């Protein structure tokens, strides 16, 4: 399946914006990404397997909040860097929601 790599992580992927890996869960996809691009996973998921505060994963235009989130063949996964400096990259896939789930507040780092 295809994974969209945001600009802050493209140093790992040789500037590639989309990469192809396989996995039946979000966690499996991240493991596969890390196997190919060592170090990438730790930048977005901490050592307790918690998604970092300013990282979001989007699957089928919905946020995926856990590494156990199931994936289906053909899914596209988008890694989003959320509200911590932004990006001037306007090449995000069309139709991608960057809104927050109801009631969720993001804390901007100082």
């Amino acid at each position, binding site marked *: 399946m295809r994974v969209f790599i*945001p600009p*802050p*992580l493209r*140093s*790992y992927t040789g500037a590639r914006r989309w990469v192809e890996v396989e996995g039946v869960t979000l966690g499996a996809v991240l493991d596969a990404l890390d196997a190919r*691009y*060592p*170090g*990438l996973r*730790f*930048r*977005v*998921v*901490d*050592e*307790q*397997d*918690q998604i*970092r505060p*300013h*990282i979001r994963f989007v699957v089928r235009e919905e946020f995926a909040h856990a590494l156990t989130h199931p994936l289906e063949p053909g899914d596209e996964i988008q890694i989003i*860097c*959320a509200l*911590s*400096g932004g990006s001037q990259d306007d090449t995000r896939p069309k139709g991608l929601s960057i809104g927050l789930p109801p009631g969720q507040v993001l804390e901007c*780092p100082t």
Partner: protein
Amino acid sequence: MAGTRGISTGRSSRGKVSGRGPESRKGRSVSKAPAHPWVLVGTKKGAFIFRGDRTRSRWQATGPIFLGNEVNHLVLDPRDGRTILMAARTGHLGPTIFRSTNGGRAWKEARRPPAFPKANDAATGPAVERTVWLTPGHASQPRVWYAGTSPHGLFRSEDGGISWEPVSGFLDYLQVLKRREGFIGATPGGPLTHSILVDLRDPAHLYIGLSTGGFFESLDAGGSWKPLNQGVAAYFLPVKNPEYGHDPHCAALHPANPDRLYQQNHCGIYRLDRPGEVWKRIGRSMPKDVGDIGFPMVLHPRDPDTAWVFPMDGTKVWPRTSPGGRPAAYRTRDGGRTWQRQDRGLPREHAYFTVMRQAFAADSLDPAGLYFGTTSGEIWMSPDEGATWRSVAAHLPYVLAVTTATPA
């Protein structure tokens, strides 16, 4: 591989590169200076390396390196003179360590950055938010490094910073200390494990500072620890003479006399002569209108009686800026019995500097050079042990760390 390869060298468009300094204007060369000093600067938005000439009157700036990264510490390994470790993170991405083995020309990410062990309850287990301190190990252990983190954690690398493991004895000890509520805490910037000091005579003899938590000693390479806070005030705690819970802002072990320690604390300036265990408050002799509050503590490279602090306003709401808007270093040459103001060349008024705990450093040359960075993005240096100061750079991002080095 992550990060940037082959960052170009040359003058930074952001950094003002200075002209000639006072020694040169007087027509005197600093002939005792044997090498080209480097000043390594970590900022909230990247790193810079300033390479000086032999007289320390001209500086060439390289950078920004990893623009946009918060660089909490940038340290050149004095054991090989070419390896640099950088503690970095960005607003979005988790913390990591970058390594250069060629003096900063190219960088590679650590294979396993500092990370806590997986907890039984992942939702409440600690996760490293940033590495705040890097210390090269003992000369007899040329691949060993230590790292201090936020939240509190001590990590060790035995392969030159490529992979890191927790010092489990320290993590276990932290759990014991945390049983007393409020005695292991956080600064406004989070809990900080810093001032990791290695005894030059014994690689197993370590000291460490926790903000907040206090100052601690290990005699077995971090396997076990004991508090070393007697004599240090902690006005913010509910007991008068606590065993721990203090707030050492920065501690330093003298390179020529490893029995002598100095400490700039949240509650004053102190000195400890081992094997003694009671700190002496040497900040009492600072001018009353300046006080003895600050962040950094800098030692002379050869004279154990000479040290510098950079006082800040710790009154009322704690502005943490230069008292009266008049920045100055204060030097003692007698182990803290007396202090002398050193402000020649610094702004005379309305200069509200804040110098962070790891943003003031001395080089090892003769006379010693001093360097500090401000949160307003300035780098200042003194080629004559603080007698005169001049600006090396302005308009940089918020300076978090300044270290010095003499490269191979």
